[in-house]
């Protein structure tokens, strides 16, 4: 034996592997491919199942998060409506006491508040349309208050404006009551 030749036991040539593979395929080819296909299908089903499981867990987490956001926004909304009732009462009092600057301030705050609430999902369609006209009425009352301060109009609100303010307070009060009742019912459940 020459020194540069390796013993066959240690060196497996590519042709050896190829011939072993073709012999193995001839003997067990069909069984192996059936088994392989079966394993592939099982793997695929397992993957699909895992994806579905992951997706449903994500959806559940998302719906829980949405529920939590809804609860927080409902609480904030109740707070805003209560603020609205307070502002409308303060506005009416300021007009009664002829504190026009104060009345303008409350009217502006109330307008901002109402415009932020008008599209809220906690309002019914009829409450929303009521609020749109109330925002418009408040803007007319604000204009009147500004004219009073500038000395362009008599120092009083018209009867219709006073009635409009009462209507707004009644509407916001009713809304406040409905929301608080609903919150109590949820707690009771």
């Amino acid at each position, binding site marked *: 034996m020459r020194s540069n030749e390796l013993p066959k036991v240690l060196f497996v040539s590519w042709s050896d592997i190829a011939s072993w593979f073709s012999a193995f395929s001839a003997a067990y080819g069909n069984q192996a491919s059936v088994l392989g296909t079966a394993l592939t299908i099982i793997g695929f089903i397992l993957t699909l199942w895992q994806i579905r499981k992951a997706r449903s867990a994500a959806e559940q987490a998302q719906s829980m998060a949405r529920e939590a956001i809804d609860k927080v926004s409902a609480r904030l909304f109740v707070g805003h409506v209560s603020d609205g009732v307070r502002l409308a009462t303060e506005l009416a009092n300021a007009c009664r006491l002829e504190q026009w600057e104060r009345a303008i301030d409350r009217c502006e705050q109330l*307008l901002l508040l109402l415009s932020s609430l008008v599209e809220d999902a906690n309002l019914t369609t009829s409450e929303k349309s009521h609020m749109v*006209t109330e*925002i*418009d*009425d408040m803007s*007319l009352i604000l204009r009147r208050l500004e004219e009073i301060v500038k000395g362009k109009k008599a120092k009083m609100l018209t009867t*219709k*404006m006073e009635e409009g303010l009462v209507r707004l307070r009644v509407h916001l009060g009713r809304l406040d009551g409905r929301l608080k009742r609903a919150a109590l019912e949820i707690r009771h459940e």
Partner: protein
Amino acid sequence: MSKRKFLDLLTILLKETKEGKIQWHETVDEQVFRVAFGAGLVRVEERVSEHSTPDFEDTWSQTTYVALLRNKQGRTLDELWSGHEEVPEGFLHELYTTARASALSIDDTINSMIKDAEMGKTVEPPTEDSLRRE
């Protein structure tokens, strides 16, 4: 462009109001009337402004008719007034009087009175005696 579109809307409103298809509503201001839609509302108003010479010797008042397009949040999106170059003369005055008549149901009241007058049907004011009897 938007002024032109707003004017188109007002023209439609005038036509539909005359045909009795649209009902305007009163506001807290006796000189302002409005009609609301899903996306907002249209307001039409009569504004009377007082003017005077610097020495206040001569004073006069000027009436302007204004139409406003407002969104749900109360923001004014567009505005047209009598005297605006795109507004035909007398158009906003006509719209205002038509809107006022619609909001206050003036035609219905007059029609009812005409009917009563033709039938000679009047209502006598209560006398002191009748009030005492009640």
